[in-house]
């Protein structure tokens, strides 16, 4: 099993009542889990999941998650 820390942005935190913006979420996944597995486990659809940053770099859905990774998930948005 691997454990990753996830921070959510935009209105995504509102979907998880227990979310603590300081600490983020600690999520446990099976070995070899990918970014797509993580978003699925968090019930985030393609419509509301924008860029996913994995240890400071933009990740693709098929990217594998290393143990202890720090992940930030942003929403899809248009320009300001």
């Amino acid at each position, binding site marked *: 099993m691997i454990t990753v820390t996830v921070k959510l942005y*935009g*209105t995504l935190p509102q979907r998880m009542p227990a979310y603590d913006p300081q600490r983020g979420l600690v999520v446990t996944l099976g070995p070899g889990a990918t970014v797509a597995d993580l978003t699925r486990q968090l019930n985030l659809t393609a419509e509301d999941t924008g*860029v996913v*940053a994995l240890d*400071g770099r933009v990740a*693709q859905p098929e990217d594998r998650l290393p143990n202890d990774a720090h992940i*930030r998930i942003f929403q899809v*948005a*248009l*320009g300001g």
Partner: protein
Amino acid sequence: MKLIRVNMTDQTVQVEDVPQQYAGLGGRGLTSVMIDAEVPPQCDPLGPENKLILAPGLLSGTPLVNTGRISIGAKSPLTGGIKESNSGGKIATSLGKLGITAIVVEGRSPAGTLGMLVIDPSGNAVLKDASALKGMRTYALSAKLLQDFGPKNTVACIGPAGELQLASASIQTTDVDDRPCRAAARGGLGAVMGAKGLKAVVVSTEGKNADAIADPEAFKEAAKAIAQSIQKNPFTGQMLPALGTAGILGGVNALGAFPSYNATKGVFDGWEKISGEALAKRMQERGGKTKHMGCSQCIIHCSNEYVDEKGAYVTSSLEYETIWSMGGMIGVDDLDTIAQLDFLCDDIGLDTINTGVAMAVAMDAGHKPFGDGAAAIAMVEEVALGTDFGKILGNGPVAVGKHFNHHRVPAVKGQSIAAYDPRAMQGLGVTYATSTMGADHTAGNLLGLYLAGALKPLEPEGQADASRVAQITMAALDCIGLCILAGGVVASAKGREAMTRMLSAKLGQEMAPDAISAMGVRILQAEKGFNTKAGLTAKDDRLPRFFYEEPLPPHNTVFTVTDADLDKVYTFR
């Protein structure tokens, strides 16, 4: 459907029916086609031959939501080309309800005089003497005008920067709370208004003479479908009301595309202190507003009201682009300072983007250290005081670069880039380079494609085509008068079909399925035609050298879209 022509030279006002050549146009469509037809391309932008045109969108004043947008156009003193700058507030809806298709300001007031245009509830327009208002800043000015003419009016005005005819001067419009905090900021249109000797336009909000809708039932039905899709969309229905446009700040930093410290880094060290989330948290703690209606008929409410520690009003609306230009770009990570700078720019009548970037260039050249918020506030105040340096700063980043002999000036056609670095979002570079407006993110923003993973931001492939499509759509939205934040609805086939039905219902003629694209192309062609006649060439459709040469951390990429690809953007099939 009438045009109000105001001749500042002989101080006359004439009303005419909209000529056939402008039928079916509003907003940017009308300003650009009219400028192309009526303004000598080689004229001095601050001379009497230029025309300043204020045109509400084609659907402003109708029941469609989010149509409180006005286009203001002229030949730009900043870019030397055509300019459309878009603002919100109440003025577009008010003009629409008066049945006024555009106000066209021509000529130039006799030297030393200052006027204002006042339009009453019947749509009658008169020019009045405004010499007593000389030098006034926009907040005090708007408050005075609304006291003198009554609260059921709305105002478009200039501050000291416009009177000084500085190339970053904005035209401010009052929002739904009567504050002059919405801006047609880009391209120095405030300087054009100042050069004409026009301090303010006061418009009644009580008009009841909107142009008829040919098929009201069909219009209502399509308008309902559009409103529903705006509400259902997570961006317009949830994120913008919760966090405002600043909600995208984290995502842009995650993409390494947030130009910081005069575009030397793509991630700002203090981004979490100035993000939409941080802004919302602070406003919740202080009793400010994170969800605020800035413009008439808006159902999104992307605006906010920033308050200080005691809960007193500081500014509205603190937007993503300003948080960048007055924050990351100059190394300031304190929202209170950024809010103060935003207020000052609105009050003086200055484009926050161009002014922030001008300060970033000055800091990069060693004039002041990055991150020095107090120095930034003092610099902006210098603009209003009209000091020598204030005038240079108020003329924008290119003027500042020349003054300091500093080459790192992130501007195209004289206008600064916005809050997306072209090296980390190549398509934004295409838009900045090729847009008829100079570097303008609203002309064709591809952020949505990057965040959704539909286009690779660092690769040159596909960027020119994507920018062309976006530029066509944005031009059409600016013509219709739909807020571009709501514009995502026309990206879907269903939304586009509803919008086409609505235009048919409004105009009483069946529109072709590609009518929206055709509208956008017509506008871009008129603009490009004007710019070519004004003397702009392919050389003006290029980014500054340093974007091709200096890699941007963290991706360490440069801008790699070829000149040949840039030159194809304005090729329309």
